[in-house]
C-alpha cells in the first residue's frame, strides 16, 4: 500500500494540469460566446428600442391629434410626469400659433431608444358642410335672392317647400352680412364675432340673427397629388364621356355646343375649367361620387349648362384652391346638387345657377334673384371634425435626453405604476357636459375633467372643454328658429298686407298654420287681401274656418262666402259662427244657415 501511495504522489498533478487546460479552454470559449451573445442581444435591443421609441412617439402624436378633434389641447403628460405606454415613456408638448395652427411635439423613450416627432395641425371646430352658405369675408346679398333649406335625406326640395325643413337655412359670415330688399332668407343669419347685420326694408329673415362665438377657420383645399401633363379641350357633336378614375388636366374645356359627361367615381384635378357658349357639363354620379378640384380658374359661360345625374348633394363636390383675384364664375344655367368649397376665392354665381347643397367661400357675389337651398344632410355627410394635418417631421431631440441611453424609468427616477396611461394623461381642462346616467337621470357637470368620473356617463347629450364644444346634439343651433313653417314667420313679419298677400298667393297652396296665422295677424290684413289668400287655398280645414270666423279682419260678406263654400259646416264651426263677435249680418247669417 505504501508503495502504491508513493507512486501516486510522484505522478500527482498531471491530470490536474490537463483539467486546468481543459477548463481554461472551455472558459475562454464560454466567455467568448457570452460576449458575442451579449453583443448580439445589445445590438438587437438597441435596434428594437429605437423602432419602439419611434412607434411610441407616433402613438403620442396620434393621441394628441385625435384629442384636438375633441376640443382637447393636444398636450399629454410632461417631461416631469410623462405618460406610460407599453414599457416606454412619452409626452406631447403643444405650441399654438397664430391662425389657430397647433404644433405638436411627441417625445418617446423606450429602453435605449429615443425619438421626437413633430406635427402641425389645423383644428376645425365644425365640418365645413355644416356652415350652410358661408363667406369668411363680409357677405352682401343682392336684391331678391332666396336662401332656404331642405333635407335631401328626407325627400326632394319641392316636397319640402314651406315646411319646417324649408326654414332652417344658414347664412353665415366671419364678418358683416347685408341683406338687400326683397331677400327671402328662410332660416337664420350668423355673423362674425365683430360682425353686424344690415337688414334692408322689405327683406325677410325668418330665423333671426345671432353672433358666432368664434370666427370659423376654413382649412385649405387639400388637392390630391395628381400631376397634369396634358389638357382636355373638347369640341364635338357627340358627347365626350370621361371615364371614372383619378385624372388631372392642365385645362379642361368644353367647347361651343359640346357635351361632356364626367363619370364617377372620379377625382379630377384641373388647373383651369372652362365651359363655352352652349356647352354642357354633366356630373354623372350614378356609380360613385365626383370630386372636382380647380387650382386656378373656373369660367362657365352664361349660356352653358351644368347638371348632376342625381340629387345627392354630397356626391358632387367642387373644391377651388384658386387664390383671390382669379376668375371663379358659375355663370351656367344649372340646378346644381352639390357642395362648393373655395376658402380663398371670390365666387360669382349667376341667378340661373340654382344651388342645392352648400357653399363655403371667401367672398360671394350672388346675382339678384339667385336661389340657393341649403341641404341639411350635408352637415352630416361632409362633417369632418378631425384637424387638418399640415406637416409631419422628425424633430431633433434635446441633448439631455438623447445622450443617456439607458432605461428611461431609471434615468428619470420614475415609478411606472405612479404614471398615468397615455389616454389619461391629457392636459386637464374645464369640462362642461350634460349627460344621462345608466339609471336614465339627466345630469350635468362643470369642473376640471380630472375630477370627473366618466364611468357615470351612459349617454352624452352635450360636451365642451374650455368652452369649445366637442359634442353637440343634432338639433344644436336650431333652437332660435321658432316657427315650423317659414310662411308663418312671413305672416308675422313687418310686410304690408298687400306684400303679404302677394307672397302667400305666390306660395299657395300654403299650410293651415300659415292661413291661421294670417287670419289672426296683428296688424290685421285687409279683408280683401285675406279673402284672396283664403280663396286661393280652398278647400279650407275646420281649423282654418274657425280662425277665419274668429278673425276680425274678414268682412261679414267675405266670411259668408267662405262658409257657404265649405257648407255643410262642422258643428264646432257652426257654433263659432253663431257665437261670433261681431256677429254676421242677419242676411249673411241666414244665407249660411240655409246651406246647412
Amino acid at each position, binding site marked *: 500500500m505504501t508503495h502504491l501511495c508513493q507512486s501516486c504522489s510522484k505522478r500527482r498533478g498531471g491530470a490536474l494540469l490537463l483539467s486546468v487546460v481543459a477548463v481554461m479552454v472551455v472558459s475562454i470559449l464560454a466567455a467568448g460566446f457570452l*460576449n458575442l451573445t451579449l*453583443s448580439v442581444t445589445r445590438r438587437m435591443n438597441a435596434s428594437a428600442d429605437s423602432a419602439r421609441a419611434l412607434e411610441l412617439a407616433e402613438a403620442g402624436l396620434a393621441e394628441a391629434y385625435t384629442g384636438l378633434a375633441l376640443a382637447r389641447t393636444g398636450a399629454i403628460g410632461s417631461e416631469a410626469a410623462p405618460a406610460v405606454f407599453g414599457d416606454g415613456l412619452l409626452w406631447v408638448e403643444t405650441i399654438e400659433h397664430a391662425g389657430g395652427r397647433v404644433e405638436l411635439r411627441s417625445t418617446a423613450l423606450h429602453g435605449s431608444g429615443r425619438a421626437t416627432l413633430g406635427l402641425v395641425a389645423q383644428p376645425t371646430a365644425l365640418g365645413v358642410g355644416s356652415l350652410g352658405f358661408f363667406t369668411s369675408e363680409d357677405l352682401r346679398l343682392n336684391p331678391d335672392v332666396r336662401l332656404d333649406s331642405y333635407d335631401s335625406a328626407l325627400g326632394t326640395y319641392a316636397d319640402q317647400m314651406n315646411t319646417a325643413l324649408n326654414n332652417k337655412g344658414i347664412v353665415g359670415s366671419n364678418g358683416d352680412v347685408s341683406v338687400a330688399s326683397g331677400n327671402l332668407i328662410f332660416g337664420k343669419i350668423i355673423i362674425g364675432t365683430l360682425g353686424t347685420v344690415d337688414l334692408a326694408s322689405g327683406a325677410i329673415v325668418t330665423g333671426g340673427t345671432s353672433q358666432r362665438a368664434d370666427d370659423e377657420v376654413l382649412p385649405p383645399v387639400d388637392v390630391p*397629388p395628381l400631376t397634369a401633363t396634358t389638357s382636355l379641350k373638347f369640341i364635338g357633336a357627340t358627347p365626350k364621356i370621361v371615364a371614372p378614375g383619378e385624372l388631372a388636366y392642365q385645362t379642361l374645356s368644353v367647347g361651343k355646343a359640346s357635351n361632356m359627361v364626367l363619370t364617377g367615381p372620379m377625382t379630377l384635378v384641373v388647373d383651369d375649367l372652362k365651359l363655352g357658349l352652349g356647352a354642357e357639363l354633366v356630373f354623372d354620379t350614378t356609380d360613385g361620387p365626383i370630386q372636382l378640384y380647380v387650382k386656378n380658374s373656373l369660367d362657365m359661360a352664361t349660356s352653358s349648362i351644368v347638371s348632376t345625374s342625381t340629387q345627392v348633394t354630397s356626391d358632387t363636390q367642387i373644391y377651388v384652391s384658386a387664390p383671390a383675384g382669379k376668375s371663379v364664375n358659375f355663370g351656367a344655367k344649372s340646378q346644381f346638387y352639390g357642395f362648393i368649397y373655395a376658402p380663398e376665392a371670390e365666387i360669382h354665381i349667376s341667378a340661373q345657377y340654382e344651388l342645392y347643397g352648400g357653399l363655403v367661400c371667401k367672398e360671394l357675389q350672388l346675382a339678384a334673384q339667385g336661389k340657393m337651398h341649403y341641404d341639411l344632410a350635408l352637415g352630416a355627410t361632409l362633417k369632418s371634425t378631425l384637424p387638418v394635418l399640415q*406637416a409631419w417631421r422628425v424633430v431633433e431631440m434635446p441633448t439631455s435626453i438623447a445622450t443617456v441611453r439607458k432605461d428611461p424609468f431609471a434615468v428619470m427616477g420614475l415609478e411606472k405604476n405612479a404614471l398615468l396611461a397615455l389616454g389619461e394623461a391629457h392636459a386637464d381642462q374645464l369640462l362642461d357636459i350634460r349627460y344621462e346616467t345608466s339609471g336614465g337621470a339627466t345630469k350635468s357637470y362643470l369642473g376640471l375633467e380630472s375630477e370627473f368620473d366618466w364611468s357615470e356617463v351612459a349617454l352624452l347629450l352635450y360636451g365642451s372643454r374650455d368652452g369649445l364644444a366637442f359634442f353637440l346634439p343634432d338639433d344644436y343651433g336650431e333652437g332660435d328658429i321658432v316657427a315650423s313653417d317659414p310662411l308663418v314667420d312671413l305672416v308675422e313679419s313687418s310686410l304690408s298686407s298687400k306684400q303679404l298677400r302677394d307672397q302667400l298667393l305666390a306660395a299657395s297652396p300654403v299650410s293651415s298654420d300659415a292661413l291661421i296665422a294670417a287670419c289672426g295677424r296683428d296688424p290685421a290684413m285687409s279683408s280683401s287681401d285675406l279673402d284672396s289668400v283664403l280663396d286661393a287655398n280652398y278647400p279650407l280645414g275646420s281649423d282654418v274656418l274657425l280662425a277665419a270666423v274668429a278673425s276680425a279682419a274678414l268682412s261679414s260678406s267675405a266670411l259668408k262666402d267662405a262658409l257657404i263654400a265649405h257648407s255643410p259646416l262642422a258643428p264646432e264651426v257652426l257654433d263659432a259662427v253663431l257665437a261670433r263677435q261681431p256677429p254676421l249680418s242677419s242676411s249673411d247669417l241666414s244665407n249660411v244657415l240655409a246651406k246647412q
Partner: protein
Amino acid sequence: MKPTSSQRAGWTLVELMLAAGLTGLVMTKAALVLREAFGAAGRSTAAMHPEDQARALMERISLAIMGSDRDTLFPAAESVHTSQIRYSMSLGLEDGELVWSEPEEIRLDGSAVEWRENPGAADERRVTWTSLVSPLLAGEVVNGEDDNGNGLVDEEGLSFELDGDSVHIRLTLRRPEVDGRTVEQTVESVVCIRN
C-alpha cells in the same frame, strides 16, 4: 524483494512519448477549437457591422423621405426605380407659417450614398453617408432581366420605387474583410410620405 529507487523514479520512454503525444493532441485540439470559435465570432461580428450600418442608413433615408413633401418629390413618376431622390422636408412652423427645407437629395454616387442640400447650386452642401454600397442590389446582374425577382431590372445597390404616397427603398452594402472575404447585407423598407 523491495524495488530500488531507480526503478520507482522516472518514466519509461514509452510513457513519456505517450504522455507527450496525448498532451500535444489535446492542446492542438483545444487550439483548433479556440481558433474556430474566435473565427466564428469574428465572422459574426464582421457581419454585424454591415447590417448595423445598413439598418442605420436605411433609417436615416426612411425618416428623410417620411418627412418630405409629396409634391416636391422628384422623380415623381411611379413604376420606375431610381437611385436618387430629391425632396423638401418640413421644418415646422416659423411665425405661424409652415416652413419647408431647401431642396435635398439622396443619391448613389459610385459606391457612396450622398446627401446633398441645394444640389447643383453654388452653395451645395454634401455629406457622404456611406461608401460601401454594392454596385447592384443583391442577386442582380446587369443583363436586362429581373434576376432577384423583386420586380426591378438591373437595379443598383440603392434603389427607390414610388407607389402612390409610398416609397420602397432597397439597399445592399458590401464590405471587404481583411481575410479577403466580402460581407454583403441587404435591407429594404417601405415608407409612407407624411406630407
